[in-house]
């Protein structure tokens, strides 16, 4: 049961930019590609918040942390508090598939599938962060480029019964009725998003320690099983 969006998402998040994000892209190309972002996000001298926040100084900033911008989603602010900082790696994951990083993001953007294009956009954006020289140069090479998920692993059909058993562990905190006070709801979460998000925790791209621990010990079969179960509800 290969679901193409699922495979695309997982593959990309695992090996995101293994070829391109090792080095910065072309800022001039990035300026052109940025046009698709510009309708919501201003950047550069005098940039203001529009639909989305301005992106000056985005590198090294804590996610959801600009106090004068009031339209962050609950989930984005939560991730920021949990320790999500914007750097090449996290921005690359975010603009590739916003929901992989922040399930309830208000950034209604399909994402940029092409890794080179993402690297270009990030190279462009990086010019508008105050101290680009201070951005740790280790970040691009710290990408988990060695991680490799074989297509047959991605093709695993989730075992719904097993997923139901595994879900009992989730239910201790994530309420079945979808209540999201303090702990986000995962009820009715689309299967694809579920798989991508769990792998993001497993890869420690998403920050929360409890979720990193739970996801970290789930096998690929178990992630598929959980996603299949939650998808079957």
């Amino acid at each position: 049961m290969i679901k193409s969006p699922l495979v695309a998402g997982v593959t990309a998040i695992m090996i995101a930019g293994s070829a391109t994000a090792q080095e910065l892209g072309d800022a001039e190309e990035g300026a052109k590609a940025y046009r698709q972002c510009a309708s919501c996000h201003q950047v550069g001298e005098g940039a203001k918040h529009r639909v989305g926040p301005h992106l000056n100084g985005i590198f090294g900033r804590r996610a959801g942390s600009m106090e004068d911008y009031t339209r962050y989603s609950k989930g984005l602010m939560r991730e920021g508090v949990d320790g999500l900082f914007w750097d090449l790696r996290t921005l690359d994951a975010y603009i590739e598939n916003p929901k992989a990083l922040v399930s309830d993001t208000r950034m209604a953007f399909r994402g940029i599938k092409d890794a080179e294009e993402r690297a270009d956009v990030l190279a462009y954006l990086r010019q508008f962060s105050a101290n680009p020289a201070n951005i740790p140069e280790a970040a691009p090479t710290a990408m988990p480029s060695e991680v490799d998920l074989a297509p047959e692993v991605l093709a695993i059909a989730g075992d719904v019964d097993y997923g139901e058993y595994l879900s009992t562990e989730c239910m201790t905190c994530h309420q079945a009725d979808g209540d999201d006070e303090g702990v986000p709801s995962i009820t009715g979460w689309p299967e694809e998003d579920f798989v991508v998000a769990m792998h993001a925790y497993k890869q420690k791209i998403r920050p929360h320690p409890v979720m990193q621990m739970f996801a970290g010990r789930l096998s690929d079969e178990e992630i598929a099983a959980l996603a299949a179960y939650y998808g079957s509800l």
Partner: protein
Amino acid sequence: MKLNRRTFVGTGMAAAASLSAPSVHAAGHGKPRVVVIGGGAGGATAARYIAKDSDGAIDVTLVEPTRTYYTCFFSNLYLAGFRTLESIAHSYGTLAADYGINVVHDWAVGVDRDAQTVTLAGGDTLHYDRLVLSPGIDFVDGAVPGWDVTAQNAMPHAYKAGSQSELLKRQIESMPEGGLFAMIAPPNPYRCPPGPYERVSMVGHMLKDMNPTAKILILDPKPAFSKQGLFEEGWAKHYPGMIERIGPDFGGADVSVDPEAMTITVDGEVTNVDVCNVIPAMKAGRIVEIAGVNDGNWAPIEPSSMRSTIDANIYVLGDSTSAGDMPKSGFSANSQAKVAAMTIRGELTDSRVFPAKFSNTCWSLIGTDDGVKVGASYEATEEKIAKVDGFISQTGEDEELRRRTYEESIGWYEGIASDMFG
């Protein structure tokens, strides 16, 4: 059947007698029967999952003495006014009405392992194919010289939530200005490792406003305790100069009490106290010993299933067990209950059984919006339930993360409560 069960629960003990008696006769040719003793995080969860997942194929009876159950977790928050007592109170109505569980409010006083029956204080006998024991803790007699349960009004333990929690709160509120609150902390292993220290934090929070010159003295037989760095950092920040802890090097393990005189003797030196919270050494709930499935103070279990190593028809959950690396906590008991429920259902109805997975997280509140957590995941090995991976809050975290951790604990409470009680 379902209607009968609802009626039965609604009308209480009279109906219990009429329904439980035929159960003995039904043995062997009716539905398989599971009896669960103890309606806390282990027992209520196990009963609910067996009933829910077997979809009526297994008859589940839950024996719990109290009609209103107060969770021990979050009872410290009640002391400091962060929760009301009502908000940690739960009833068994949903388990009975929506899950078809026979809820019997009575004490289990006997287990006949050969006949596979449980005797209740009210005189009824329940037959079981599988028995789940999840009775929580009892106190070791004579653990603190001078104290026994008859002294629990003068010197409350408040380690079973409810009236004891109310009593302790009132006593703290009535302390004289500049008075002394003493806590006799328990030796390992005990229910909720960070619990006594979260309690000290909450008492500090109470006294800071209403009685700021009062002091808190902890007498501790342990050289170190759970989340120690986090608590000590928080105490210095929120309650500077208020809390003193005496460990075993300075007599913390050599303590006796006199509840009538309201004194404690530490290493031979007598001190007057205004409130004394005695948390004695613990052991498995009494029914474990009555059933004879204990080894010393605790019940040994098979790591892969929570089955008693002494009797294959009995499962033991939660605080009463020796569960390897897992701490005694509500989260642990809830986690273990799901493994046992799955195994029991597999045995009785041939449903699928998957490898056991266990986990735990304990949140503690140190001050207003200052929450911390520690947790781990576990797997069953040949010898024990072994820790795989874990995490703990760090000292020096910013206030926003601490507030978020506290909010997460509130979310967890709602989650586990609905996982236990439906």
